[in-house]
Structures are given as C-alpha cells and as structure tokens.
C-alpha cells in the first residue's frame, strides 16, 4: 500500500461578487502538502464520480469537492457547501453525507493545525 500513489484533495469555493474564491488543500504520500486560498484553479476531470448522486447539488452558495486517490482507486465527490449538520440530516443521503461532512472537518482541522504551527498564522 505504501508503494501506491496516494493523495487527498479538498476544495470548497464559489464564484461570486469577489470572483472565484476558494480554499483548497492536498496531502500527498511523499509528504508534500499544498494549500491554496482564493485563486483560480483548473482541474482535469478524468476521475470517477462516486456516491454523491443523492447529495445536494452545487448551488449559488458554492460547492465542495473531495478527491482521494490510492493506487488505482480514484474517487471524487462534489456537493453544495454544508453550513450545518441540519443540511446533512435533511439530505437524501444523510448517512453518506455525514461521513463526508466529518471527514472534511477532520482534514481541515489537520491542515489548519499544521499551518498555524508552521507559520504562526490563522488560515482563512
């Protein structure tokens, strides 16, 4: 497993009054970590979409994406921004969306800790 390519990428953003604003980060197996806030980003779309059929579609508020690659497994999810757990509970797939909701929070928590400790700044 350690020899397989692995990365996790998360994106949350919207296009609004101030242009394309977003937060994006990525962890890679070789130890690289990328973090971006508020810039333009183009992604290729060769990735299998999975399990997000019943999740809220992206909307005017924006969208979130989570992409994970582990060897030949390459999955991605896209949904609307979730402001509260209520939106998760009220969705058509509360169980799946709840996993996504908490995983995203845990990932954010991790990268914000790393950034805060490394730079002594508060991200976002």
């Amino acid at each position, binding site marked *: 497993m*350690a020899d397989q390519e692995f990365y996790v990428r998360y994106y949350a953003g919207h296009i609004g009054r101030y242009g394309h604003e977003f937060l*994006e980060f990525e962890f890679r*197996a*070789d*130890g*690289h*970590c*990328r*973090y*971006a*806030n*508020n*810039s*333009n*980003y*183009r992604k290729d779309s060769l990735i299998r979409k999975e399990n997000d059929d019943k999740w809220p579609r992206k909307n005017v508020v924006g969208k979130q994406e989570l992409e994970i690659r582990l060897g030949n497994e390459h999955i991605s999810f896209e949904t609307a921004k979730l402001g509260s757990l209520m939106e998760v509970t009220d969705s058509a797939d509360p*169980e*799946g969306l*709840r*996993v996504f909701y*908490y*995983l995203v*929070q*845990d990932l954010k*928590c*991790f990268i914000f*800790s*790393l*950034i*805060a*400790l*490394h*730079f*002594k700044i508060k991200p976002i």
Partner: protein
Amino acid sequence: MSRYDNEIDLEPGVDNIAPDYMAVDSEARDGVRDDSHDYDRMDEDTTSTGGRAQRSVEGWIVIITGVHEEADEEAVMEKFAEYGDIKNLHLNLDRRTGYVKGYALVEYETHNEAKAAIEATNGTKFYDQTIYADFAFVRSTELATNCNTRRGMGIKGRANGRRDRSRSASPSRNGRR
C-alpha cells in the same frame, strides 16, 4: 509548475535555489542524495536528521501518530515535556466522536529537543498503542528520498462511517461521553 496562482510558501526560510517542490521528476530525486549537504543548516545541528528537518517560524514541530483515542492533553504534555519545553500542543479531536483523532503536533523551541523527543518516543507504546514520531516538516529536497522512512505515519481516520457505526462502543468509551 505550481497549479496554484496563489500558493503559500510552505517552507519559509528555505533557500531560494530550491526547485519547484511539486516537481517530482526522477532527475530531481536522483540529485537529492548527493547535494543535500550543500544546503544551509537552519540549526547548528549537522546530523543527517538535522538536515532533513524543516524549522517552522517559531520552533520545530513534531508529529506523533498512533495516539490512542482516549489519550488526554495532560498525558501527552507530560510525556513530551520530558524532552524539552513544549511551546505548543495540538491534540485534535475527531469531529464526529469527540475522541482524539489519532495524532498530536508538538512544538519545541530547539531542534535538539525535538530530535530527542522523536528518538525517544518513535515506535514506543503509549496507552498500549505504538506511537510514531517524526518531524512534521522536512525540507522539500529531502522528501523524495525520505518518504520511505515516513511510511506508516498514517493518521488514524474513520472515513468509513458505516464501519464506525457497526462497531459497538467499548465499555470504556461509554463513561466518557
């Protein structure tokens, strides 16, 4: 090239001669071993470990994985204070369960303290679980050659909620929340 127009430099203070650190071409990897000693040291320490680690703005960050979900901050603090004055400690919680996620980040002021903590605790038992400790930040030029040594630093996750739900709570958990 960087895919981001506006990317934070994750390695403040690193030499400007460092190449684009997202580039992973084989030539760059091959070159690493030979010229790693040419880089300026951020610290007086000149051991191989010292050259590999990357200093953060105010100190050296150690990442500990395999931390038991019921470990508490005082216990982690106590264990790692043995090797130096802890400037900062992040023991993040699983947002869903409220238990420790499985990793801790500890900041020491000096490289020697961080190194001592890593050497003394890496692979040891803590709350009956093996923990792994290493520098959280390493020089980008060192990543290619050292990623192998960083294997197994997996952060305990519960991405699969279904598995989580099917697990019955152990008696010890019930008491806590």
